[in-house]
């Protein structure tokens, strides 16, 4: 009973306040009953903000294209393939690399980048390292073959740029590769 009296007093006080300002256009009508609360200064509102995400623009790069002769020679370079979680060169890979070494020695202006790639199994980070090991295996062979190491750079794409997007052994086998491209 005492509570209800207190509550009514509160409402009256609030109304009096609103009227004293003389512009109570909005009538406050709570749609649910509130139990009595001791009168106290209202809790200050905390500002909740929503920060904006800023876009970052990168300028479009200008790329120089290699000449037709180099493109033709580079097109003859073959990719080498690897076993799962392995960067050792197979007998087949050595034969392919010997062929690539011949083309490179006949085309002294052709500088290449060997991209190391992996299949989708295993983590992003481990595969980045594995891809680089694969590319370096191929590079080491070519350097031993007699190609200047200044003509060969390596980069690993791990499992981020699969040649075959499939999820089976046939796709995986294609994706475990050292891919040859012209150095830009």
């Amino acid at each position, binding site marked *: 009973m005492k509570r209800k009296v207190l509550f009514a007093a509160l409402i009256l006080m609030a109304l009096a306040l609103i009227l004293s300002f003389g512009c109570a256009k909005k009538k406050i009508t709570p749609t649910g009953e509130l*139990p009595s609360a001791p009168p106290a200064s209202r809790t*200050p509102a*905390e500002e909740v903000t*929503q920060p904006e995400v800023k876009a*970052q623009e990168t300028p479009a790069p200008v790329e120089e294209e290699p000449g037709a002769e180099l493109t033709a020679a580079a097109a003859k370079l073959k990719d080498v393939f690897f076993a799962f979680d392995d960067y050792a060169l197979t007998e087949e890979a050595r034969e392919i690399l010997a062929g690539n070494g011949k083309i490179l020695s006949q085309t002294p202006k052709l500088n290449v980048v060997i991209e190391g790639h992996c299949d989708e*199994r295993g983590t992003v980070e*481990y595969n980045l390292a594995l891809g680089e090991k694969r590319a*370096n295996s191929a590079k080491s062979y070519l350097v031993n073959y007699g190609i200047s190491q200044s003509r060969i750079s390596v980069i690993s794409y*791990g499992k981020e740029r699969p040649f075959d997007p499939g999820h089976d052994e046939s796709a995986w086998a294609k994706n475990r590769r050292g891919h040859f491209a012209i150095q830009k």
Partner: protein
Amino acid sequence: MLVIFAPLWAVAADQPEVRLEIRTSQTISIRIYMRKFYAMGTGGLGRQASDFEKIVTSDLQLSGLFEVLQAPGGDLDSFLGGFKNRVASREEVMVEGRVSAEGDKLVFEGRIFDIAGRKTILNKRYRFVGPALRAAAHRFSDEIVSELTGEKGIASTSIAFVSNLSGSKEIYVMDYDGYGEKQVTRERSICLSPHWSPDGQRIAYTSYSSGNPDLHVVGRYGGKPYTVSSFKGLNSSPAWSPDNKKIALTLTKDGNAEIYVLNVDGSGVRRLTSHPGIDSSPSWSPSGRQIAFTSDRSGSPQVYVMEADGSNVRKLTFSGSYNDSPTWSPKGDRIAYASRLGNNFQIFVADISGANPVQLTSSGGNNENPSWSPDGRQLVFSSSRGGKRDIYAMNADGSNVRRLTSQGDNFSPSWSPRSEQD
């Protein structure tokens, strides 16, 4: 126009602060009755009130700390009357709230009411623009968790991850519950392995935008990234140190994948490992004194632990042919990792000695890249169980798995620390 708020659920100054004892997730002993949140005034804010209530209810349920029940609608006195002369088996509180308009902003007022004690134990008021409603609701949820358990909540945390939604692999950030996904980088290249700074303000990641996998850092709300390191070869798998000053990462600048530590400005590069095998994926212990990492020095990838200066390397995982992505729990007592089982990867968690490995996932597809919530009660990870990779979260015991992303290829999640403002 002047809008006046009558004093509402203010806490009297002479009331003792009520703090219930700290609970663990195993003993859920606080019951929360959610009263229907309502709109005040004529602004037609019913949907906002209902959204606010849904978000808070979901947050409280996801916390794993409470039993959350819907309170019956209608008169409050009769609801509370039902608790008279009843001995509660657990602490029981009621949460209610209301939304009103104040100029072009919204105001939420909410409180926790202790049912047995018949008093308000928390009273909060937030003012915000419409799009910040989710953030305001998460703030209120965190206040409830903090008030009732003494532990900070995680409802205001975020998850960074990689997505190809824009056409190239970029860093994205979303709320911990999967809402509010935003693209943070626009490098139009390949961005990988995001990891938060401990202050929650920046994200380190690997970017191919220069043609080489360099280490970049970007603000959590985007903007122009800066390059921390661009050594020839890999600058990959960054892990920000707990003191915010250093980053551990994998570099191949010396010819082989080794773990290094450098300052956040790229200076002071120091090599920690020295082995012809692959060393990768460092994760700091919360004390900053140790680092877990992956190495294939035994012939296959396994998880190892070393001191932060590179000394005292010891093997943590012994079963399984492929264990990777170690991540140290925030309390420092456990390490989660991904382990290959048959043809699939599953998430495991073990003691830091490697003892007591427990398998947390058992789905088809690959479950990888676990990352702990800052309270250590949950893990976020990527899984291809649905046919493509998406981000999932689960309780740290493997229960309550839920998918957080749906569009595109999504992977490598990193759970943010609690934000500074909390």
